């Protein structure tokens, strides 16, 4: 059985607790890095991460990009979307096609 986690600052992720997801409030990038590696080793299939946190951990996210699990999915935090999630979709297209054709 796989698990789902939500990472980010306290206020952004607290609400997901009501849905029954594992919530991992993170205050600093170092904490986030540690928690991410720990969860990747455990049975987490999906990790939702706020864009605010993801912006500070680009190397860690790139590391898990080509792995089957976990899927790190960026979601907007409470401050709003930074556009990183959409930019990642664009990057994927550019990587595959060689140019952004959408």
């Amino acid at each position, binding site marked *: *059985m796989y698990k*789902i986690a939500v990472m980010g600052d306290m206020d952004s992720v*607290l609400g997901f607790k*009501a849905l029954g997801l594992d919530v991992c409030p993170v205050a600093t990038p170092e904490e986030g890095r540690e928690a991410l590696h720990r969860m990747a080793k455990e049975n987490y299939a999906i990790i939702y991460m706020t864009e605010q946190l993801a912006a500070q951990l680009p190397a860690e996210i790139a590391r898990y990009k080509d792995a089957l699990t976990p899927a790190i999915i960026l979601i907007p935090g409470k401050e709003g979307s930074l556009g990183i999630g959409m930019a990642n*979709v664009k990057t994927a297209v550019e*990587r595959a096609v060689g140019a952004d054709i959408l």
Partner: protein
Amino acid sequence: MPSTTINPTRQELTRLKNRLRTSVRGHKLLKDKRDELMKQFMDVVRENRALRKRVEEGLMRAHGSFTVAAALMSPEMLEQSLLYPKQSVELDMTFQNIMSVDVPQYHFKTSSQDPGEVYPYGFAQTSGELDDAVDAMSQVFQDMLRLAEVEKTSQLLAEEIEKTRRRVNALEYVKIPQMQESIKYITMKLDENERANTIRLMKVKDMILKEAIQEKREEDAKAIRTFASGSEAPRQV
């Protein structure tokens, strides 16, 4: 340009021809794979964009309500209300194979099916905005799971397409021309050797012939001399 050192031998030629045949076949297959992957990828990416837009909008709405709720309630109260979730999600993952790329498929099951059951707290001491926030989140949750699946798929496909594209290009623009060049070089070299051999044989034959004629002439001359001077014919000519 033929690669640095190739032996212009028949054995090497056969080997190269076999390799070229395999490469051309591989190139064709890889090209087909790339095209099909690309087709799948475009569909996935379109869905990915649409889903992401929807999820981001939904989550922003939820965050909006949540911020208001957080302002109305004390942080301790808020945390306490959400501390023990009623709902739990069980996630199951299977893999689907798209053109030899394993992509995840998630199936999830919530412990309770009733949508009114998501609130893990009593309504008396919490603000109504918190209900809105939780409601908005549970609505967007379906899309979030689908987004996870689609986004991971698109990332994995993108990686595979990149790899395949590189291979196709390497074969098409480097490996196959190189081999064709080498084959041409060996064929030319072998033909050249063949001609050289023929010429050498012709030369040798010429030399031997010339010698034979010379010998014959000398013998003739000797015979004529004996005949002219001679009383007796030689016993044998």
